[in-house]
């Protein structure tokens, strides 16, 4: 029987449908698990935390969800080596839970995806993520080629990596900087960063390589019908673009 993937849904999550659909289209055995079903989460083999506004971003984005009962199971699973992948609000929750970069203690965050800068506005913009680690450094990226470019949509007001200089040094030295913003050719420059993120960071991985948090949404550029580079004659329902990262996640569960 194939590995079971849980897509936890908190009050306020809003990207669970496309996340679930893409996991299934990539061959994953995925199910939604709502907050009222928290006790069933431990039975799953892997977790994908989708985007949205869990608990309306009250106090800070991800702060309340990080203390939710559902996260008790996810934190325990991550400690046991199961794969955990967070996108956008899911990534913010993983930071608040201390699972990434994982340089502090559980639920004692050492970094934040904070208010965008210089303009503190919601940003909706097509971006490219460049893999900044060796693919095998993270189980979830292991099937991607070196320097892979993953297209996605940035859609957030709090996506700027912020931390003290000491913790930013730890992120670099510990190999936690998994993805950086780049242009479609892979060139890394300021213009490619939509939110003022420190280190140009688009994604972080923990030390063990089983927890990955990324801010942009690859699942919103994942089928030909919503892929910017769609060509005449393409099968509109075929996966493409950002699906590569989800396919790599599913691949890791099969290997």
């Amino acid at each position: 029987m194939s590995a079971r993937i849980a897509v936890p849904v908190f009050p306020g999550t809003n990207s669970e449908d496309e996340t679930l659909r893409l996991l299934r289209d990539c061959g994953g055995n995925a199910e939604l698990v709502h907050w009222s079903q928290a006790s069933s989460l431990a039975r799953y083999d892997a977790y994908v935390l989708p985007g949205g506004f869990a608990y309306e971003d009250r106090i800070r984005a991800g702060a309340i969800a990080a203390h939710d009962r559902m996260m008790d199971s996810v934190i325990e699973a991550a400690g046991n080596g199961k794969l955990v992948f967070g996108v956008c609000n899911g990534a913010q929750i993983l930071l608040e839970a201390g699972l990434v970069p994982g340089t502090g203690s559980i639920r004692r965050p050492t970094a934040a995806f904070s208010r965008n800068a210089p303009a503190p506005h919601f940003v909706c913009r097509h971006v490219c993520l460049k893999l900044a680690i060796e693919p095998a450094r993270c189980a979830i990226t292991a099937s991607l080629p070196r320097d892979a470019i993953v297209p996605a949509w940035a859609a957030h007001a709090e996506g700027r990596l912020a931390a003290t200089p000491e913790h930013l040094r730890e992120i670099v030295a510990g190999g936690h900087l998994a993805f950086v913003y780049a242009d479609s050719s892979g060139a890394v420059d300021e213009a490619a960063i939509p939110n003022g993120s420190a280190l140009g960071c688009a994604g972080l991985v923990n030390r063990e390589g089983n927890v990955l948090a990324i801010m942009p949404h690859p699942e919103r550029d994942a089928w030909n019908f919503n892929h910017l580079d769609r060509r005449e004659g393409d099968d509109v329902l075929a996966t493409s673009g950002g699906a590569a990262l989800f396919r790599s996640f599913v691949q890791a569960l099969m290997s």
Partner: protein
Amino acid sequence: MRAVAIGLKIPDNTAFTAAVALRRLGIAVERVERSEIWFFEGEGNALIERVKADETIFNPNKHYVTVLDETFPRSGEVWIEPLEPRHPDPSTGSLEGRRATAWRLFGPNEATLARESLAAAVERLLCNPAVERAVYNKHGKLERDIPRASE
């Protein structure tokens, strides 16, 4: 420079959620009050009118505004302020500048929580030290937490 508190006169869902989360963390909170603190030059009614005219921070149907006596928290209160001040936003012309979120946590009999419990709430939920710091009232004076390195 004066501190202005803008609070909700409708039910504060964020404060309610914070109270529930803090109880789950073992902190004995009966009730939570929250307001946004902004710092402006000016005095008295002119200052209040200026704040009320900025519809990006004040909605008369939802908010009340109070000019505070001090530019630091009252006893039993903590202010959570960003480490980096927000950038002024020229596109909206709003008054954005230095700001903080004020929290008052009440235990049984409407007494504010002791400093140790308040600090525990700050450390475990109310403040992310990567981007924020806590400001307390210590014997009638301002006291700032220095952001900690990882534990």
